[in-house]
């Protein structure tokens, strides 16, 4: 039992923090918001070439590093802290999704491309009525030996800068399938959206009679796998939330140490100190659940942990990290006082990010309901037996 990073993981973390503090200061995020697609492709190129993060979640057999969720979480905490405008989350999630489908030429090609730096975005839902498999709003119709796709997939991270899109689609209103579609494909329109969190790259996809080869079909009966991928995604989002919250806490502690009112630095007022203490308690708590969830996801991917345990871990950290980031960034604005709501100060960017991530893939109370159902509605106390 060593619930701490290995030396390699610590080096990965330190390297990421060093790189990002040099190459991804907050100005980079602010500037990327002005770029088409909202992504800093130069920064991404540098990451892929110098650091090779894109290869982390790709199996060694496909040209990747074959590392796990703990390593991804280490990096996503660091990118989350910088609001780093790269497609790292998007491509890593796509790689993990591709890891769940059977070997095929198409799958191999995509994984290899990802390991080489190609951007592949994951497009799974229109988020109506919800973020899970039942929210899929693209239909797949067979058309000879080809498939015809129609519908929409929304809130696609980095969709507008992706070369390929992984699109979940519904066949005969029942089965979920997974397709790969090049972003330039006929009938596919990818529309970059400005988000309330301006520093986040988001796109909507509209598919009108998008006809693809049979080889584009990567998986059938993919509903359960999609649910699993989304649980992994929730853990990845939580890592960004923990990074975001930690930075918001740090910048707030720094600010209140400088700000003087009533002849005292406001950091000396209990009202300020106690809020900061609550912020830290929440951040560290979310972080503990995050590392547990990452370990659990790795065990699940190795086949040594049950699917229910992954689901529980993802729901726990989604609930905790979602509430935490929103509380911490919101309190951060409050403790900044007047300047906290100005465009000039950075804390508002973290607040917007915290809000965006809290709502992404399900709200914290929805995650708690997942836990409650497992504890209260099963015939056996499902979670606890784990």
């Amino acid at each position, binding site marked *: 039992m060593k619930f701490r990073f290995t030396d390699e993981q610590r080096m990965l973390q330190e390297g990421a923090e060093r790189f990002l503090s040099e190459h991804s200061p907050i100005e980079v995020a602010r500037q990327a918001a002005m770029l088409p697609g909202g992504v800093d492709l130069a920064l991404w190129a540098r990451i892929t070439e110098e650091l090779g993060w894109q290869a982390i979640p790709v199996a060694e057999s496909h040209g990747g590093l074959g590392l796990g969720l703990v390593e991804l979480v280490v990096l996503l905490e660091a990118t989350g802290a910088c609001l780093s405008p790269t497609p790292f989350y998007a491509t890593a999630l796509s790689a993990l999704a591709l890891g769940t489908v059977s070997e095929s030429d198409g799958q191999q090609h995509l994984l290899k491309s990802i390991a080489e730096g190609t951007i592949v975005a994951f497009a799974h839902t229109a*988020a*109506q*009525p919800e*973020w899970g498999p039942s929210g899929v709003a693209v239909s797949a119709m067979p058309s000879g030996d080809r498939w015809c796709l129609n519908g929409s997939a*929304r*809130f696609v991270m980095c969709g507008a800068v992706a070369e390929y899109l992984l699109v979940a689609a519904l066949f005969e209103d029942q089965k979920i399938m997974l397709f790969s579609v090049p972003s330039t494909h006929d009938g596919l329109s990818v529309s970059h*959206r*400005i*988000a*309330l*969190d*301006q520093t986040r790259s*988001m796109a909507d996809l509209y598919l009108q009679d998008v006809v693809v080869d049979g080889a584009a079909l990567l998986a059938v009966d993919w509903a359960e796998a999609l649910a699993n991928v989304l649980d992994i995604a929730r853990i990845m989002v939580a890592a960004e939330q923990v990074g975001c919250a930690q930075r918001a806490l740090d910048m707030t502690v720094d600010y209140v140490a400088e700000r*003087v*009112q*009533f*002849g*005292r*630095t*406001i950091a*000396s*007022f209990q*009202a*300020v100190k106690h809020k900061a203490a609550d912020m830290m308690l929440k951040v560290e708590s979310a972080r503990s659940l995050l590392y547990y969830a990452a370990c659990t996801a790795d065990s699940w991917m190795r086949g040594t942990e049950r699917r229910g345990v992954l689901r529980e871990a993802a729901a726990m950290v989604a609930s905790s990290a979602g509430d935490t980031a929103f509380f911490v960034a*919101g309190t951060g*604005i*409050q403790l900044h*006082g*007047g300047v*906290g*709501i*100005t*465009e*000039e100060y950075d804390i*508002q960017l973290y*607040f*917007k990010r915290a*809000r*965006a991530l809290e*709502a*992404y893939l399900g*709200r914290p*109370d929805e995650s708690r309901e997942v836990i409650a159902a497992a504890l209260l509605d099963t015939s056996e106390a499902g979670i606890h037996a784990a």
Partner: protein
Amino acid sequence: MLLEFSQEDERFRDEVATWLTEHLIGQFADIRGRGGPGDEHHFVRERKAWERCLAEGGWTCLGWPEQWGGRSATIEQQVIFNEEYARAGGPGRLGHIGETLTGPTLLAFGSDDQKRRFLPGIRSGQAFWCQGYSEPSAGSDLSNIKTRAVWDAETALWRFYGQKVWTSLAHASDFIFVLARTDPKEKGHRGLSFFLLPLAQEGIDIRPIKQLTGTAEFNEVFFDGAACGADDMVGAPGDGWRVAMGLLDFERGVSTLGQQMLFQVELDEIICIARANGTARQPAVRQRIAEAHIGLRTLRYNSLRMLSGGEDGSLSREAVIYKLAWSNWHRNLGKLAMDVLGPDAELVEAGPYELNRLQSLFLFTRADTIYGGTNQIQRNLIAERALGMPREPRGDAAKE
């Protein structure tokens, strides 16, 4: 205890409602519901015209004495006017600082000459005011003011040097009242004086402050030699703190019920969306909507107790709770709006950053618990003024 208004008051209500219905048309139809908090920068020209129209109808400065063009209206009548104004969708008032702050201050502390020079412009909707209190290092700690007013014997004028901040409506105003240090040897509350300055002069620079919403409602106001005459000081030199604090007492809360009607419009919109998109079936959302409803009704009855005066069973010294209560309620409403809107709340309708009303509500309400006294300052005030608890020790940090 009587919650109903008298028949006479209800007749007054009809009169107000009728006048508003008849006048919020034509050129003014477009500005219905515009220009409130989060929207202050819009339709300034049109809203000034509307102020003049209001004034012609005799609907500005209701609470002022008749001598100065007011109606000496009762609290009830002022409440009713504010309620009906909000109900009719009356645009955000540009004249309210002059009407509710400058006016009562001059009536209490001003010279006859000052009253004659400044009150009619406010009453007629011709002269607009903004307030120059906060400074970068005097936010929560208002007494730490550094803006200096220096007597220039040569020109027989006071000259101003320094900076004010968070000045709402400065870009739309004609005058500013300024709390400035006239005795550089004094610190804290002492050595401050209270001045009335025209904004359109050399030595004043107004710069908008862009907010997290992408819009700019607050301003910085820089003074570098701007001037006013000896007769533009209210009270005597060194009286500034007393005048400024007296001014804070003038807010009798008559506008709170109007504010609450705007809140009700926002809550109704959220409820409407929740019913339409099915979030109304989610238990957590249901609890929060119920809480919002209860909270808004609480604000209403708090206000009515406060306005009913200081006898037992009523809120009086406890009136200090209102700011803390409404601002946190409103901030929570902003969050609720986002959660009810669902995923679409995350996307902006149009570039560069065109927020819809509820998105703007969500972001702008983060300011509610900060401006006009942060949550922290409000809790200090409640503890010290209403509960008689001791003050916090002041520090003597040199660093500012």
